[in-house]
């Protein structure tokens, strides 16, 4: 299954930020998004994840195949690491969380409350959630923030295993993970500031 974006325009707060974006993502491939802050990397990922509709253009092959990791990790502070991951595993119907715990060395922390973890440990638990979803397309927004070099290596290994299994991934990141991935600079797709396409997404106007 291929993820295909065709002539996509995405908007934030009613203003188009990226326009005319087309890409294909085959299974087994990773795509790294680059571009200056505010260019629309997060907006693009949220649009592909289905959290907001595109202004125009089409997204094919995303329905029910996406796992999205935002800036926030989506962990409940008052649940333990294992409880957090088990909940997501049940939601996505995955059998167990052990591979995810192992991949991010979370086994010693499994009964620790997520609220008592350090920022990097939280991030690892948040990334482990991607593995328990069992979804083929990972959308990762700055996945390596607050990770140390060992944890970045863990993440790179997990991502590589995911790609080898026929999964694919789109990452917004600025560091080099050392994996084979295409890079897409979003700067050329930036929407002109005056290109206000009558694009108000205000639902109640």
């Amino acid at each position: 299954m291929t993820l295909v974006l065709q002539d996509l325009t995405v908007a934030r707060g009613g203003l188009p930020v990226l326009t005319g974006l087309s890409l294909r993502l085959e299974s087994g491939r990773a795509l790294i998004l680059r571009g200056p802050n505010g260019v629309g990397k997060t907006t693009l990922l949220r649009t592909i994840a289905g959290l907001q509709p595109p202004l125009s253009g089409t997204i094919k092959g995303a329905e029910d195949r996406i796992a999205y990791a935002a800036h926030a990790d989506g962990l409940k502070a008052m649940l333990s690491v294992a409880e957090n991951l088990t909940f997501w595993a049940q939601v996505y119907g995955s059998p167990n969380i052990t591979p995810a715990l192992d991949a991010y060395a979370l086994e010693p922390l499994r009964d620790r409350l997520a609220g008592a973890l350090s920022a990097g440990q939280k991030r690892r638990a948040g990334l482990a959630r991607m593995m328990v979803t069992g979804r083929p397309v990972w959308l990762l927004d700055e996945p390596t923030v607050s990770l140390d070099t060992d944890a970045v290596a863990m993440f790179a290994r997990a991502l590589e295993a995911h790609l080898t299994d026929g999964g694919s991934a789109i990452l917004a990141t600025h560091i080099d993970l050392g994996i084979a991935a295409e890079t897409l600079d979003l700067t050329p797709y930036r929407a002109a500031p005056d290109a206000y396409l009558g694009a108000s997404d205000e639902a109640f106007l």
Partner: protein
Amino acid sequence: MRALLIRELRLALRAGGGFGLGLAFFLILTVLVPFSVGPATTLLGTIAPGVLWIGALLACLLSLDRMLALDFEDGSLDALATAPLPMEGTLVVKALAHWLTTGLPLVVAAPALGVLLSLPAPGYGWLVISLLFGTPALSMIGMFGAALTVGIKRGGLLLSLLVLPLYIPTLIFGADAARRGAAGLDPTTPLLMLAGVSFGTIALLPFASAAALRMNLR
């Protein structure tokens, strides 16, 4: 769905989860009313159904802004929205968890607190029944308000203002059923209206809430 319900209940029961907040408020209100009104038993008995209903409603209101705001802040709402659960179902389960941890304890505690307000003997059964029928509507309407205000910082004030008018029919019919029961009159008509309000909100508001939440997540 069941996993979500268990997670919600577990979160509510853990420290800082908000379980007991509504109950404590309900208790404080009904303990203080006799002190402020004075030791007039007949007067207290007359106002008891209304006071208990207002107490239950405000106790419910108190916990509404936690329903979605906490999930929004830690990012789990985004993750839930992209999960394979229908948004409507997610919100119904969350409202159910809210009712189980806020509404149901109020229903159970109400007879005991009725004693403090010298509620007349025939009123206890009808008070419990009216609260049992009415509090699910309070949770579901509250979920709708929470979904409308979820992205707003400190949205609690707006949430209260939005939700209070929607609570009025529930309050009128609920308190009326309890009052008529306590006075020995037939409470069937207000009870039926109350049940109608509850079933109506449970049938319609999940869709409205999910639509509002989708707008707010954009």
